[in-house]
């Protein structure tokens, strides 16, 4: 008896003990992460008089990166201002010519294009070019460069450097290199004038302001990398080892793409000296740290404890509560990312346009926005997102079950469809998941059964790619995000719906009339905007009738930051998703440490 009692008791004790141990460990980890981060981020130049004990930590991001001599070290008596921005995704590459993914988040601060574009005001902000012009039909473009600009290595900016940068991007042909497709020839007129001759008319000003593939960098990289020429893979290696060759307001000083990227102010940047330059603030942070925090709930916690200053994502349900929190600010801006449901137009019964229309009328768009995004999105009207030129308000489908049932009956399916449709979405994306579940529940009401299947992006991708050859084997419905490379309706319409775009046209949609319309519209973008808009409208009307895809919502960007970050609103631009233009921020009111 005593023997068993002993064993029994020891078992419970073990359980209790293990729970206690787990709690202690978790507590310790939380405590450590809370206390260690501020010290970690404090530069070693902090004078001992400050409230913080001088940190002996060798890990300080900004000041200890061994390879970068800090030019400001000698002069600073005051503490450096630091802003930490949490990114949900890891950084990808560091090569400005080929990068076509997450890394633009910091590249926009380190590199500069010829122009920036503000899509909400539909106007350009001069960057490396101060003036530009084109001939009547938009086939010859001349850019006049800013004088006195130096790259971070001290090399002056010249037309040769611009030519070399763009030609390297074109020659490598990776990432967003396709944006330069119209370019026939680049000619250097003089040190500060460069001319582009195009194969066909195009809006080269918008292309030059692209968020991807339009960066200008120092031609000396060939030398630094010990390479033969600019396209030598050694150059890419040099970039990806964490070097930068940009001209922007910040320099890359620490490159640890899976954990953090540290940028330090470039005191020689031309923009600090210009009066009234809209993209500069006298109180911009000295150090800007991009920290990878892969979870929205954790980002919110870190923000509330002050361990980060700006969160890229917080759970949308919490936004209302955060708006009432006196210590934080919430900035909501339109975003050019939208969510669509691509329909396999080649697989019966979805090859019948009436069935597709029935589906379009059976989806409760308002409910999706409320459930999936806590109301923080806009019901889509056509595939071009709200706020962008080319968006029209007359392209919404009415949610009308009766109409949907009628359409389905007219198509020959009065009792619903006898096959279960397969809807795929990216596993782990909570917005897509909720959307998928609402669609499943709604289509059931008109007698369409849907199986929803979360898949990894790669699986989903290869399944969808097989659709051009074998539409029967591919998915029926595909929930899909799109956002533009540079700001043109053509980007959306061509990639997702043109029959030549085999990679992204995952509706397998073919319509020569539509193709012709957008091909013509894109050449008129620069020379005849009115006409281009008219054609884009017509093209979208065709999509509205044909329903190769159902646009669901246009996203909104929600950034939450601590109160002391000034000008946050100005630092966000939907043409450059995820970027915080740190040079615009005003951190004079920020409590450090």
């Amino acid at each position: 008896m005593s023997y068993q009692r002993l064993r029994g008791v020891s078992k419970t004790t073990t359980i209790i003990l293990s729970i206690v141990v787990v709690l202690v460990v978790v507590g310790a980890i939380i405590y450590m992460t809370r206390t260690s981060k501020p010290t970690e981020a404090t530069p070693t130049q902090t004078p001992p008089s400050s409230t913080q004990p001088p940190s002996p930590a060798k890990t300080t991001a900004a000041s200890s990166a061994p390879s970068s001599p800090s030019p400001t070290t000698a002069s600073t008596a005051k503490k450096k201002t630091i802003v930490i921005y949490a990114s949900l995704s890891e950084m990808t590459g560091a090569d400005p010519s080929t990068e076509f993914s997450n890394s633009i988040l910091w590249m926009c601060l380190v590199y500069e294009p010829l122009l920036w574009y503000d899509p909400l005001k539909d106007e350009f902000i001069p960057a490396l070019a101060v003036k530009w012009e084109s001939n009547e039909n938009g086939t010859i473009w001349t850019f006049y460069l800013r004088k006195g600009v130096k790259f971070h290595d001290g090399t002056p900016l010249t037309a040769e450097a611009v030519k070399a940068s763009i030609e390297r991007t074109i020659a490598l042909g990776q990432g967003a290199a396709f944006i330069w497709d119209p370019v026939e020839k680049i000619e250097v007129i003089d040190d500060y004038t460069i001319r582009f001759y195009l194969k066909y008319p195009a809006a080269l000003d918008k292309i030059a302001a692209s968020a991807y593939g339009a960066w200008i960098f120092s031609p000396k990289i060939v030398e630094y990398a010990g390479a033969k020429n600019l396209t030598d893979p050694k150059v890419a290696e040099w970039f990806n080892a964490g070097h930068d060759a940009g001209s922007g307001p910040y320099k890359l000083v620490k490159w640890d793409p899976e954990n953090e990227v540290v940028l330090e102010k470039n005191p020689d940047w031309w923009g600090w000296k210009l009066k009234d330059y809209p993209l500069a603030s006298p109180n911009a942070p000295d150090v800007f740290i991009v920290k990878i925090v892969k979870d929205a709930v954790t980002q919110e916690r870190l923000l509330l404890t002050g361990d980060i200053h700006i969160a890229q994502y917080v759970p949308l349900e919490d936004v209302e509560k955060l708006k009432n929190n006196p210590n934080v600010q919430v900035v909501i801006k339109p975003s050019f990312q939208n969510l669509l449901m691509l329909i396999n137009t080649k697989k019966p019964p979805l090859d019948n346009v009436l069935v597709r229309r029935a589906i379009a009328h059976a989806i409760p768009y308002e409910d999706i926005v409320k459930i999936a995004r806590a109301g923080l999105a806009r019901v889509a009207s056509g595939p071009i997102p709200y706020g962008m030129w080319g968006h029209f308000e007359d392209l919404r489908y009415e949610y009308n079950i009766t109409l949907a049932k009628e359409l389905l009956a007219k198509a020959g399916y009065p009792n619903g469809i006898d096959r279960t449709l397969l809807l795929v979405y990216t596993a782990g994306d909570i917005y897509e998941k909720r959307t998928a579940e609402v669609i499943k529940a709604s289509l059931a009401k008109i007698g369409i059964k849907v199986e929803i299947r979360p898949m990894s992006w790669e699986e989903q991708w290869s399944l969808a790619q097989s659709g051009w050859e074998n539409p029967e084997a591919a998915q029926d419905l595909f929930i899909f995000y799109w956002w533009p490379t540079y700001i043109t309706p053509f980007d959306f319409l061509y990639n997702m719906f043109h029959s030549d775009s085999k990679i992204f046209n995952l509706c397998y949609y073919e319509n020569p009339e539509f193709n012709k319309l957008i091909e013509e519209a894109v050449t008129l973008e620069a020379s005849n905007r009115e006409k281009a808009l008219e054609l884009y409208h017509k093209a979208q009307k065709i999509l509205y009738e044909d329903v190769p895809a159902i646009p669901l919502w246009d996203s909104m960007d929600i950034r939450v930051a601590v109160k002391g970050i000034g000008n946050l609103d100005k630092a966000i631009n939907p043409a450059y998703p995820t970027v915080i233009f740190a040079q615009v921020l005003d951190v004079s009111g920020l409590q450090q440490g």
Partner: protein
Amino acid sequence: MALEDFKIILSLIKQNPVSLTGLVIVAGFIVVGVLAPYILPYPEDAWGEVYHLEKRFLPPSLEHPFGTDDMGRDVFSRVLLGARFSLIIAVGVVGLALLIGVPMGLIAGYLGGRVGTILMRITDMFLAFPPLLLAIALAATLGRGLVNTIIALAISWWPWYARLVYVQVNSIKSLPYVDAAKIIGLSPLAIMFKHVLPNALTPVTVQAALDMGSAILEAAGLSFLGVGVKPPTPEWGLLVTEGWSSINVAWWISLFPGLAILVTVLGFNLLADALREASDPRLRRILLISGRV
């Protein structure tokens, strides 16, 4: 397991409140798992076939004892139905693993020699991988779904049973009664299944009971990582993940399925502990001598 074993187990459980708790929990789990589809307060919510715009994120109340989730569905119904899936997973994984592992270990142990070596090396190959890692890799390759989850877990599980049976059989096959069976001319198959296997099963049974809990836990882990069953199936691990993104406004969505996992796994562990004690020969002798059985 002979009748005598059952007596010992029962008496042990009766005497030990901790084991009794385990038995009650497991019995309750099985009852809920079997009856779940018939006792759901909101069956449509449980199967994830509907959503309720106006009922999202309601805190626990009499109407919704565990609150409602991000789609306005009753969490209590979903957790109840989740018991059924967990039960299927537990029985499926352990059953399938036994089905592969026991014959493998039996044949390898009894025949020995080259066949035994080959079979055991195959087993070792599987044992070389950390089980959860192997299960994740398999689940990711097979794709999501209830059956695939069971297969993935069973494949990473059977080698443990094979080893266990192999060791048992190895010691049993040289016992005199096996020799006797051989001498009277029984076929090897008959000896294996009639005389060796029944005597080798006791530790396997204990291990299997213990593993039921672990199987539920690992399946929940796979779903949590996004390679397990498919939403909107209300599997417990999946329910925990689904609640995570809104944990700051609605803690109940993750908490209750999490508690369900905790309690069930605890129940299985406590029960298995009693089984282990019952199979301990020293303890048995103490009980028999003291005349308590």
